[in-house]
């Protein structure tokens, strides 16, 4: 009952926020929140640290951007295609990466992502260093013109809610329970007869597809798909968002994305812009040293202890 109420309040806030805050900024936060939630599905619930998730964000963005520029498809079809493309790439990478564990898993995903980064740098359809610029937003379902920022925001909010609901369903399904069991004790899960690698692989595909969904949407919001989204810095950023918000919590990545994106916006506008990477690195170090459960994790602990 109480959580229902919380959800209603949050939804109300999300619906009225663009009246007060710049809608493109809000849409950006939602895109990164979805990205971080998708990443958290893998790290928080399956215990797999991917260091190459930017590649799915970027792939979704490129596919959607290319389709919007070169085909007459409506944005929702372009986004779905981008999502599927990310899922397929995730299927290939996941198959390779789940063969190794822990630290190796992180290195394999990072290296695979770098491989794709170089391919996109040279490939004819990505626009190389310039990226795909001037991606038209089009009309959703052929009816709703997304050129208006406010309309775009509500479109993004709808996508975010669908993605968020999917993640919520995945985590609370029997599949999600088995994922948690694998995270807690992999050999026991194996001995209970679960094909551990198969479960990890499926989790990887879902996470990759949803990351691509976030990237596809982001491309429409900014009318741009670029190499920044494929770079390893971006893979680091999504880890930071999840860490700041709280690994393994449902709402944490959303909070983390809000904090990190706000921080970046605030810093890049002011004179501290030059220090952006230094500050991000410092936040990383501080979080790991003394704030490992993140904002939401700390909050939950506080609530458990005091109420």
């Amino acid at each position, binding site marked *: 009952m109480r959580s229902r109420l919380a959800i209603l309040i949050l939804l109300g806030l999300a619906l009225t926020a663009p009246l007060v805050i710049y809608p493109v900024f809000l849409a950006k936060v939602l895109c990164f929140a979805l990205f971080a939630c998708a990443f958290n599905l893998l790290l928080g619930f399956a215990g797999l*640290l991917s260091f190459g998730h930017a590649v799915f964000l970027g792939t979704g963005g490129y596919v959607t951007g290319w389709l919007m520029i070169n085909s007459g498809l409506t944005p929702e079809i372009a986004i779905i295609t981008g999502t599927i493309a990310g899922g397929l790439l995730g299927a290939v990478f996941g198959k*390779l990466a789940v*063969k*190794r*564990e*822990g*630290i*190796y898993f*992180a*290195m*394999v995903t*990072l*290296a*695979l992502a*770098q*491989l794709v980064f*170089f*391919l996109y740098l*040279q490939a004819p359809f990505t626009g190389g260093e310039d990226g795909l610029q001037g991606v038209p937003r089009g009309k959703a379902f052929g009816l709703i013109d997304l050129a208006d920022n406010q309309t775009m925001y509500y479109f993004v909010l709808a996508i975010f809610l669908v993605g968020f609901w999917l993640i919520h369903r995945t985590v609370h399904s029997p599949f999600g329970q088995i994922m948690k069991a694998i995270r807690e004790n992999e050999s026991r899960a194996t001995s209970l007869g679960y094909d551990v690698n198969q479960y990890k692989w499926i989790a990887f595909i879902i996470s990759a597809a949803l990351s691509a969904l976030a990237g596809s949407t982001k491309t429409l919001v900014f009318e741009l798909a670029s190499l920044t989204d494929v770079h*390893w810095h971006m893979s*680091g950023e999504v*880890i930071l968002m999840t*860490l700041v918000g709280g690994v393994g919590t449902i709402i944490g990545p959303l909070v983390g994305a809000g904090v990190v994106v706000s921080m970046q916006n605030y810093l890049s506008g002011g004179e501290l812009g*030059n*220090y*952006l*990477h*230094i*500050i*991000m*690195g*410092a*936040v*990383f*170090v501080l*979080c*790991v*040293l003394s704030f*490992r459960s993140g904002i939401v994790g700390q909050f939950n602990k506080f609530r458990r202890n005091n109420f």
Partner: protein
Amino acid sequence: MATFLGINFFALFGQLLIGLINGSFYALLSLGLAIIFGLLRIINFAQGAMYMLGAFVALLGFKYMGMSYWVALFVVPVVVGLVGILIQRFLIRPIANEDHLYSLLLTFGLALMIQGMFTHWFGSSGQSYPVPDVLKGGMRLPFMYLPNYRAWIIVVSVLVCFSTWWMIEKTKLGVYLRAGTENPQLLQAFGINVPLIVTLTFGFGVGLAGFAGVMAAPVYSVSPDMGSNILIIVFAIVVIGGMGSIGGAILTGLGMGIVEGLTKYFYPEASATVIFLVMVIVLMIKPSGLFGKNT
């Protein structure tokens, strides 16, 4: 005369030489990673930043204090190693009992910070470091022109790698190291100060990266992102070789340098990606790596 079966030997050997030089750096860096991994069970994401730091300390020492290359070759690894010791003692050790992924994230954050600071101070463009006078010029071999400094890199890197291997496999200190890798608790019970060994090992592994940085300064341009670019390739190499053996890390590093050089000659478009492709193939055939033990 220089061509046979359509192969231009001057160009081919030129690329092979560049490949061997890159391979020397890959070997030095992955050797450092492997030594650190052996005892600490973590991958040092800041290894690339330490390599960059080594190159910059050499450059700044030369610019502002007139420190010669030869002095730098000894001083810089010590300085970088000390930085590593401080990092291990005050940042990594407090979280050593947590999930090892946290140490990975910690070193990643440190790498971001260090790279960010140098970009802020020196800009992102590269600076050059002069080749020491004694090693200027080169030799004209029948099939290629060999610049002296490049020959020096290969010889010295191989020597350093080999002595490290020898130290770990054949000396008393190496026995402690290997025992610590196998069973740290038991080693501690024998009265060996394991935490000290762990800290020194981290310092040594990081010092190797600093050493590689000094060696690299005269051939590559010294820039803040030189470390992160090479580090991701070295990660792929570590996956290819597996971290089972010190010798394996050295051989895979050199070997992948040569593979990269050959690709630059035969199919230049793929030269940036070939090592990652090899990694994919190795993952499909032998996931534990060429020299890795099954885990």
